[in-house]
């Protein structure tokens, strides 16, 4: 199994969710995150005083998938998340040793 993590622009969440559902993903986890990459942050001005916001709001999406689906799923997320502008985010995958469905105790791919 693989854990695919995507840190993307918040307003792309709905497109990504739809694309994942169309692909047949059964579940996912979404958290609000903040951070920066090459985009860095932005500057705000309050009564002339500059305020640099270097951590910008992001969404982190996590999906557990079978090894065979991983590459294709990454492509699906990247396509749905892309705006072409700086700050679109990153997607990566890491191997997962085990997974358990809490309700039934099923393990491995059966738990997905």
């Amino acid at each position, binding site marked *: 199994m693989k854990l695919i993590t995507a840190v993307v622009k918040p307003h792309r969440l709905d497109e990504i969710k739809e694309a994942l559902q169309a692909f047949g993903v059964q579940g996912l986890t979404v*958290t*609000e995150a903040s951070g920066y990459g090459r985009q860095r942050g932005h500057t705000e*001005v*309050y*009564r*002339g*005083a*500059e*305020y*640099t916001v270097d951590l910008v709001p992001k969404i982190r999406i996590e999906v557990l998938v079978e090894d065979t689906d991983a590459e294709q799923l990454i492509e699906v997320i990247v396509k749905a998340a892309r705006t072409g502008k700086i700050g679109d985010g990153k997607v990566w995958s890491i191997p997962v040793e085990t997974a358990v469905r809490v309700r039934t105790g099923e393990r491995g791919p059966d738990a997905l």
Partner: protein
Amino acid sequence: MAAGILTLAAEAPKIDTGNTAFMLISAALVLVMTPGLAFFYGGMVRVKSALNMLMMSFIAIAIVTILWTLYGFSIAFDSGSGLLGGFDWVGMRGIGKTEVWVNGVPTYVFAVFQLMFAIITPALISGALADRVKFVAWSVYITLWVTVVYFPVAHWVWASDGWLFKYGVIDFAGGTAVHINAGAAALGAILVIRKRVGFKRDPFRPHSLPLVMLGAGLLWFGWFGFNAGSWVAADGVAGIAFTNTQVATAAAVLGWLAYEKIKHGSFTTLGAASGAVAGLVAITPACGSVSPLGAIAVGVIAGVLCAAAVGLKYKFGYDDSLDVVGVHMVGGIVGSLLIGFFATGGVGQTAKGLFYGGGGAQLVKQLVGVSVVLFYSLIVSAILAKLIDLVIGFTVSEDDEVAGIDQVEHAETAYDFAGVGGAARAIASALDGSSETKKVDA
């Protein structure tokens, strides 16, 4: 006995119901300015000190109302000497219910109207002391400050036997007595107490600009009572004062925004709200002296100068947290002095300014009024703040300030962010790293 009262009532000047109704409504309008101010300031501070900022204004309503009743109205408005009123109205005894102040308005009504001014003036100071003062120290400070500064200064400027009033200083609704007075007091206090942790190093981002706009809106609304009501009659002069209040405020919004756009590149909501307040402050002393065209000039000048003045605290290194000096002191000076230029002589007051053939005489009087109130308030406020700091400590510890004054002084949190997610947790952890254990007293 009953006959005696009837005779007395018959001899007293008749109550004018129209003027009285107008003054009662104006008093309520001026009251709402203080909660409005609380929101204006409250939105500008960080999330961890929002409640404390609101409470600094709210407690002024409670404390000053009691002081006003006990002795404030008496020493401000009872006839006494040029420096201080008398003591006949201590506890508000000795004021007859049919006794008329002026224009058929009962003395009680005038007293409660003026009370609202006495409330908002110390509340204005709170913005300069944001995030860092003990609630008890603040309460003691406003108690002492209104007693030795506001009540006497109101007497000097507004009572018929007050020395600045008799000298001929024009202050229609409080440019000197309220705004310069509060702004200078703020400056005096912040020169004595410590700065916020991270002043100049960290920018302090306002936690809610919508609250700031709401507060500015309430201030603007209430200010019609503040200015027009200060004429103590529902007539044409009140109408001009009302009009000038609207016109100058609009002009100041434009002035501030134009300055900001040219200097910093954006039209900000904080700039618009601040411009409105700067315009309201500046037209306060002048609204009974200038024409609507003059009000445009007063507003634009105040908007631009105050927008420029708020940056001075970084240059000079005084932590006027929410720019009470830059907006209220500077705006009050601008409005008070511009009377010397723009007074037409044909509105509520007969004195003419430099641009209307009156020469420099009124300008000199305005300069004297401005200087006297500014230096008296600044010096006495600095002494009071120092005394309080020595005896009970004016500020909380730096650790407590960093943890958040709402938690430390009030044991409360302004907003419950539960369920909002990561952004909220970041704020919550910045506020307080502790766990979320709940303790409930059964």
